[in-house]
């Protein structure tokens, strides 16, 4: 039987002289219908370029296939060499025969068109649907990827949806024509674990239904274990190892494969949780032992308007009655999927969003300094949170100036001390942000947050944008800084493996409310709420092979409530000293 896709000795080069600047050097593989090939490698290994060469999108990025063949067997049995195909043939194949999901959902959608229009486009072009039919098909496509309020979301523009939602829209578009080969380029990297599991389930189901083959590009070996039949490991443009899933994962032959397998953080269901902090038995208000941050009944609602007169018809209950305490020296992780209100909680505490109701107070009276400005924040994207036009010394001086201070010798001394402490060279002060790598920039952001010696640092997905090995080092740094400065961390994240390594306590946020809160080890090893269980079950792991991700058709609850709606009082059940969960109705 001839395979669906057969790539032989593929060479791809860039620039004026493609043969001299090869990014992919002699990659070969075969893929049968219904099979999944995972291409694994770090950024710059040529895994994306390989995939883009298959549907020849690489041409638009300035690349050229210099040698090799890409044979695709069409539905009627004829074989076409995509490496030498004409553009008009390729246009039919892209979308129709080969679907593609990209890495960046934020930039893959046109910001000025509604998502409905963009999904409909695919149905119009490849299936010839028009008007109502196309709209209905688009709605079905959105339903299929579990987007709540699908009919209404069709009219949304991309900026109104979260990254996770946007990636679902992208997947809906790519799957709209039931392609026979799907290329997924890091499709779930930007998504929450539960959503990721759902997407994997969806892809698995579609594969079963239609005998679709898939090329799955990722850096997450845990994910590879769950879905792939074959694995190809790439390094510097070459396939250093390929073979069946079990063979590659269990008996890796190439040293690079072994390195990759050891660098990935493994989720250990609470066994790797930190044990270096104990809460005092009875915290007394106001004293040095009191909480560094006390949040009570925090509620954030955004108005929803509708109708001709743009009247207020309801509220989005982004955060609804969240309370927690954060002790000095303690890390509280807030986990939840996108849209659960975890970032809104963080932003409300920082004053970036006006809370509708609720109170929070930060204790300035801590053992590490009286009356110090309490809360600082480190953002997710280190590339966006530093002004590119300011020098590092100006960047670090900003919080001091904002607090009414001056650039005194003490300020400069603190700058150099913090730079040294976060592991950056001392000449960094005279440099600009673009001269630093992502990990170094995040270190800069951490140094900036510490300039005023805060008692609480809010870390909003602070390591999510970093490479795995960099991530581990930044986490280490955070733990060291916490011990040294007695910091309390509010660690907002979706990555359970990361949370396990930094959190003392965990609060699980679902639909704007805390459903479970408690000691990290307890929550991770014995989750009580069904959502927490789902969240933990969705964490990919090398141990779980060929998972039959079951498709969960439960609706994500809509957060839009009519005016005047108040959530009912929560009932809590305690499990042990510091672990309680909401009683499920």
């Amino acid at each position: 039987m001839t395979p669906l896709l057969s790539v032989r000795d593929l060479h791809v080069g860039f620039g004026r002289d493609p043969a001299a600047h090869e990014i992919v050097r002699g990659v070969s593989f075969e893929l049968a219908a219904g099979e999944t090939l995972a291409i694994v490698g770090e950024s710059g290994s040529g895994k994306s370029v390989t995939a883009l060469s298959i549907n020849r999108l690489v041409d638009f990025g300035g690349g050229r296939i210099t040698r090799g063949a890409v044979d695709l067997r069409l539905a009627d049995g004829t074989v076409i060499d995509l490496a030498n195909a004409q553009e008009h043939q390729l246009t039919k194949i892209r979308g129709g025969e080969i679907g593609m999901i990209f890495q960046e959902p934020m930039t893959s959608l046109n910001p000025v068109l509604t998502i409905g229009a963009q999904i409909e486009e695919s149905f119009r072009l490849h299936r010839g649907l028009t008007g109502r039919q196309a709209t209905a098909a688009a709605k079905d496509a959105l339903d299929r990827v579990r987007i709540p309020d699908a009919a209404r979301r069709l009219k949304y523009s991309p900026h109104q949806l979260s990254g996770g939602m946007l990636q679902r829209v992208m997947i809906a578009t790519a799957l709209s024509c039931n392609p026979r080969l799907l290329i997924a380029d890091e499709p779930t990297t930007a998504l929450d674990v539960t959503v990721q599991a759902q997407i994997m389930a969806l892809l698995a189901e579609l594969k079963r239904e239609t005998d679709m083959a898939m090329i799955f590009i990722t850096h997450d070996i845990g994910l590879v274990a769950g879905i792939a039949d074959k694995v190809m490991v790439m390094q510097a443009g070459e396939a250093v190892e390929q073979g069946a899933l079990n063979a590659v994962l269990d008996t890796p032959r190439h040293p690079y494969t072994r390195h990759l397998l050891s660098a990935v953080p493994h989720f250990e269901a609470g066994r790797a949780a930190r044990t270096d902090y104990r809460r005092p038995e009875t915290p007394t208000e106001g004293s040095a032992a009191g909480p560094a941050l006390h949040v009570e009944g925090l509620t954030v609602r955004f108005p929803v308007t509708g109708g001709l007169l743009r009247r207020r018809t309801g509220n989005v209950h982004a955060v609804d009655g969240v309370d927690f305490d954060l002790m000095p020296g303690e890390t509280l992780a807030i986990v939840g999927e996108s849209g659960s209100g975890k970032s809104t909680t963080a932003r409300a505490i920082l004053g970036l969003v006006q809370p509708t109701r609720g109170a929070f107070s930060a204790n300035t009276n801590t053992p590490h300094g009286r009356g110090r400005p309490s809360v600082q924040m480190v953002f997710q994207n280190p590339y966006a949170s530093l002004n590119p036009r300011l020098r590092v010394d100006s960047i670090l001086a900003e919080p001091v100036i904002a607090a009414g201070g001056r650039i005194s010798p003490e300020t400069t001394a603190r700058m150099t001390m913090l730079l040294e402490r976060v592991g950056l060279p001392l000449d960094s002060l005279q440099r600009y942000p673009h001269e630093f790598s992502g990990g170094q920039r995040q270190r800069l952001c951490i140094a900036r947050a510490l300039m005023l010696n805060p008692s609480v640092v809010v870390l909003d997905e602070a390591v999510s944008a970093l490479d795995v090995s960099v991530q581990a080092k930044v986490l280490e740094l955070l733990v060291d800084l916490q011990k040294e400065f007695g910091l309390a961390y509010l660690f907002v994240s979706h990555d359970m493996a990361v949370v396990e390594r930094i959190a003392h306590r965990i609060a699980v946020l679902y639909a704007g409310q805390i459903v479970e809160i408690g000691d990290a080890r307890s929550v991770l090893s014995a989750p009580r709420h069904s959502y927490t269980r789902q969240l933990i079950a969705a964490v990919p792991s090398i141990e779980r092979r060929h998972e039959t991700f079951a498709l969960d058709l439960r609706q994500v609850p809509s957060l839009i409530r009519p005016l005047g709606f108040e959530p009912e009082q929560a009932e809590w059940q305690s499990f042990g000293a510091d672990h309680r969960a909401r009683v499920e109705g």
Partner: protein
Amino acid sequence: MQFLRAILAHPSGRIGGVIVGVYLLVAILGLLGVTPHDPLMQFRIDRLHAPNGVYWMGTDLFGRDVASRLMLGISQSFIVAFASVALAATAGTVLGLAAAWFGRGWDGLIMRVMDVLLAFPAILLALLIIAVVGPGTWTSIAAIAIVYTPIFTRVVRGPALSLKTRDFVDAARTFGSSRHYILTRHLMLNLVAPLTVQVTLALAWGLLTEAGLSFLGLGTQPPASSLGLMLSDSRNLMEMAPWLLIFPGLAIMIGILGFNLLGDALRDILDPKMRRAAA
């Protein structure tokens, strides 16, 4: 220095830069009175003299040296162009930032007023303003400034709106940075590049508008000299003394070309995407 080198390395930047440089030098010399002859002196016996060794560009109907008057004219045109563009850029930046920062009602009000101003052709709007206030150098500076303010407002408002939502502005808010600090350090500093390009291009338009107004007798008033005025004076003598027409005409054309080339080059150099590709 690095910036100058980048301009000289760019093909159209080199040409534009040299042209603008020469014009600036001529304008300064004209302003300081370092001209071949007194631009106002009438050499009665040499009226309408063709260009020769003494009068490099000939003389006009009153026997005034065209080369000297051209130098004075260039400096006059430059003063008007620079002053008006400086005013327009300042006003546009303030209005654009205000619209972007305060949003909602302010944004609507400011941008609608700018739309109204933009709806008129530039020269027509300038004429209208001068017709109301009366001709003169200051009036033409004000008129040209008003005409080009909407363009700067738009150039500033767009990027300012997107900068406002960037993480580093959010970060600044969490430190409690003042509005003034955020506007100047975070917004303005990132607007320098688009503004530089726009200022250079606006100088070309300013030069042209000034020449147009003077040509119609509404800008610089005689006996002072300006490029448009010289063109206007030469109208009736076109066949008898073509040099009266050719030199100021060329001066306007080459000057505008120079600013446009320089503007294009700056756009390429300052565009962050281009720079990333180079780095």
